[in-house]
């Protein structure tokens, strides 16, 4: 069995295949179907300081080439996550857990980081600075490079031994600028991308299908967009990039490595094909050279320093 482990910041993950945030809840939910310990890790549902009820249903809408969701960061809040959910996963120390967190203010990010700082049983944090399904500042954070750098720094300072990933939004003109800001702030990786903002209408009612109107678009339709954003990030930063968006096949994962990713996350497809992440792990174990595509000179030549 070849070594396909990857180093992201201070943490070594057993392989570069993860499940994306929001897909598998707090992870334990998927344990009947996915052997979580075979993956590089799972990124949990986004945790906020206080519990959030989430958006009014309906929350999910299938389209011919993808899916819109409007969950609205429903989560149990920091206290219950730390008391109930994280210990559940800690009974299985072989599962790599990246905890996704979001906050409305810098002060809240500090509180979250300080709460996680003394804890064990997780590999790092992924900052969700770009959820399209909530009101307020949350989306704007990811659009503002100054803020991204500041938030990244205040969190990283508090968890120096953990891996810190910044999840970026595709809903901006220049993702490279935001990625660079995260790198400046001390991020260990850029996670690209979050969902695209989309909308659909019900022809019978004449209204948007979701109460909030706009929603997050994911699934196979966004693959080329995600690849392009990863490509753009890989030319802007030197830290690892975790590629996310539209993977439905092993070949799609390969393309992310070619675009410059060090690791990948499988998202929406898990609903249809829960075995895909493990198949990708198997394929990478047989072809470890796929992972290191970013190091190849042809790609390096096109990278801006």
């Amino acid at each position, binding site marked *: 069995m070849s070594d396909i482990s990857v180093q992201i910041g201070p943490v070594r993950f057993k392989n570069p295949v993860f499940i994306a945030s929001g897909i*598998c809840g707090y992870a334990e939910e*998927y344990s009947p*179907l996915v052997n979580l310990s075979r993956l590089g890790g799972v990124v949990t549902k986004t945790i906020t300081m206080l519990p959030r009820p*989430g958006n009014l249903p*309906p929350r*999910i809408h299938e389209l011919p*080439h993808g899916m819109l969701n409007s969950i609205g960061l429903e989560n*149990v809040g920091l206290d219950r996550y730390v008391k109930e959910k994280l210990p559940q996963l800690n009974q299985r120390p072989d599962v790599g857990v990246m905890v996704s967190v979001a906050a409305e203010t810098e002060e809240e990010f500090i509180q979250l980081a300080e709460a996680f700082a003394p804890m064990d049983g997780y590999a790092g944090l992924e900052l969700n600075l770009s959820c399209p399904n909530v009101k307020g500042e949350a989306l704007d954070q990811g659009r503002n490079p100054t803020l991204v750098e500041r938030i990244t720094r205040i969190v990283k300072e508090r968890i120096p031994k953990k891996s810190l990933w910044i999840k970026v939004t595709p809903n901006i003109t220049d993702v490279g600028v935001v990625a660079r800001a995260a790198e400046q702030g001390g991020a260990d990786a850029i996670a690209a991308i979050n969902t695209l903002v989309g909308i659909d209408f019900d022809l019978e009612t004449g209204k948007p299908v979701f109460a909030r109107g706009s929603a997050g678009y994911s*699934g196979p339709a966004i693959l080329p967009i995600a690849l392009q954003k990863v490509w753009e990030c890989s030319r802007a930063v030197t830290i690892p990039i975790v590629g996310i968006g539209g993977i439905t096949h092993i070949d799609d994962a390969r393309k992310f490595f070619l675009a410059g990713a060090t690791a990948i996350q499988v998202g929406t497809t898990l*609903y249809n094909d829960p075995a895909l992440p493990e198949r990708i792990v198997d394929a990478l174990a047989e072809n470890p050279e796929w992972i290191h595509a970013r190091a190849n000179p042809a790609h390096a030549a096109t990278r801006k320093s």
Partner: protein
Amino acid sequence: MCAQDAFVPARAHEFDARVLANIRLSTRYFLLRLERPRDFLEPAAGQFVHVAVPSLDDRFYLRRPFSIHDCTREAIDLVIVEVGPGSQALRRAREGDRVRFYGPLGHAYPVLPHKRILAIGGGVGLAPLYFYGFRAPGKIGEGYRLLYGARTRDDLFLEHVTLEHKGVGLSTDDGSYGFRGNVVELATAIMKEEPADVLFSCGPTVMMKAVQALASRLAIPHYASLENRMGCALGACRSCVVPTKLDGGSPYRTVCHDGPVFDASVLQWEELPVP
């Protein structure tokens, strides 16, 4: 019902099963019979399987949840109504084709040996109520009566099985068969003559709302099986939630994992969408 308080993962497995038969039942309904995989756990009435649509094109499909209509040692029967591209693709599945699914999932109807149960179904909502009465626990006519309403005679897809059974009552909106009117009117009339202790329902939201109104009026328990679009069907993605009177950080509960069968008194019926 309070799965948020102590989450217990589903005991589901992923299967790749052979299609044994695909039978048209009426203009809109068909029965998909899958070979029962050896490791498929014994399902209870109200549980469902999450079925991957066999896609022959590049279209993206979420899985489709289907309540188990019947389950023997050899086969799992699903009754499906043709409404969109997913159900149409499943309608095209032929004997020998393979279909991936996982299950059985979700909370079932309670087994209440000493209670008189009146079950009220509409449309494909017949599936779990049929399973309960005719398979497990299987007390049709003995403490379990089943009323089924359809638009027209054509939609009474199981009349060949259930028509003459003493435990079964049928209604059609147009009066083309059985009681003329909706099935809740039939239930109301029957409750006057032969009361039940508990109501079960599964069908269109508007029908289940009317059953809940009847249950409130009579002050008896009502268990309703809900339907919703789902992502994971494991309680993870929070896509299929419905509003309830429960708290615990959120009033929402998942149809897939906290349901699909709920004690109807905890649901916020006025906020449930009526498609």
